[in-house]
């Protein structure tokens, strides 16, 4: 069972986490923060799988490239290696903080956004943006299928699909503009913009221990880094 995080805790953790990371200059401390606080938080909130996939697909290649670059073109000193490692760890920490704060279960998105003070137009835009990735992928898939059916693509390999990018762009944007026009007409007819402000948010029970740990950990992380920076 996953623990629910309160919207205010998300904001507080974001601010303290990022600010603490900004002051941090120790690789060990960053690694500890990620291993002891961030990773368990991702597990508790049920996002460990997504986080690991993200690390493997995005962060690991990026880290490998940075290390390789520093090894090839920079001085091969341990100080330089430490600096590159610090950058990688900071990117991992910052990203994980953003993931902890912004990966919101679908049933809590509306209530979280409302508690963050979003209403009316901003709320509609934010909710729409949360599903846009799926929308774009579906649309691109349809255009690619149509081009495949018409014989423009010989085989369905990754490289062949990549070569279709320039041809994909214009139909994609035309369809986006058309969809926006149709969607706006439909929203007006359904009076969605007026209704979204008065809709009731679903009741969510937030986990008190997890929220308390997040607040304490965030605050502790910030104070520890300020203290270390002050004394260095």
């Amino acid at each position, binding site marked *: 069972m996953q623990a629910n995080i309160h919207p205010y805790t998300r904001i507080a953790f974001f601010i303290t986490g990022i600010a603490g990371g900004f002051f941090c200059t120790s690789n060990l401390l960053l690694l500890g923060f990620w291993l002891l606080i961030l990773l368990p938080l991702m597990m508790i909130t049920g996002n460990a799988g997504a986080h690991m996939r993200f690390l493997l697909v995005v962060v690991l290649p990026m880290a490998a490239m940075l290390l390789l670059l520093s090894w090839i073109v920079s001085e091969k000193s341990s100080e330089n290696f430490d600096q590159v490692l610090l950058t990688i760890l900071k*990117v991992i920490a910052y990203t994980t903080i953003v993931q902890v704060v912004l990966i919101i279960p679908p049933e809590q998105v509306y209530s979280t956004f409302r508690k963050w003070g979003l209403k009316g137009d901003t709320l509609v*835009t934010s909710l729409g943006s949360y599903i846009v990735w799926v929308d774009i992928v579906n649309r691109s898939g349809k255009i690619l299928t149509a081009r495949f059916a018409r014989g423009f693509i010989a085989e369905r390999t990754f490289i062949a699909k990549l070569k279709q990018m320039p041809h994909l762009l214009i139909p994609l944007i035309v369809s986006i503009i058309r969809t926006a026009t149709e969607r706006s007409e439909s929203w007006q007819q359904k009076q969605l913009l007026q209704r979204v402000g008065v809709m009731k948010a679903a009741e969510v029970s937030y986990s008190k221990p997890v929220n308390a740990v997040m607040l304490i950990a965030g605050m502790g992380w910030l104070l520890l880094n300020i203290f270390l920076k002050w004394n260095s």
Partner: protein
Amino acid sequence: MYFLLGMNHSDKQTQKTLTLAFIPLAVGINLGIGALVHVLKLPIYLDSIGTIIAALMLGWRAGAIVGVVGCILISLTIIPPAVYYSGTQVCIALFAHFAGRWGGFRSVPRCVLSGLLLAVIATVVSAPVTYYLFGGITGNGISMFTIYLQSVGVGKAESVLLSGICAELIDKTTQCLTAAFILKRVPGFLLAAFQGGSLHKNFSVR
């Protein structure tokens, strides 16, 4: 503003709904192209085409929202540091809007000029984030050039600024040209509904 444009309440409501429906989709343009460029490790970004298109179609506020929301989502999916460059996206939207009002996307030379000016602005806004928050290296293709410059004795701040401007000059010019190229190929009747931006000063809108 709507009064000045000669629009009544119904037009205003239509524009508002259209803006709200278009913004998430424009975010998708930023996301799709930006992700592809990052995966290919190209030394450019191309993650602001949606921002420029939205600013031209709906004004700078819509462009800024597209840019910032795009940065947040791209951070969660494929480019971790992107969220910290949200300020750059706001500047891009502002510039695209005012350049559009001047007719900066009307012809290829004007697009190139707009791109060059935008590159300078984007570098000035992005470089401090890259330098102070990430120590000069963010893991994209441009980091390669930054590290190289540092290895040949150029200072860290200068390396970040120099590699930034080199990449931005190509990147922003390409983005301005691509945005104009795309909007020129969109049928005029589809663009006609979008009245908040500066389409009529740059493209033939029926």
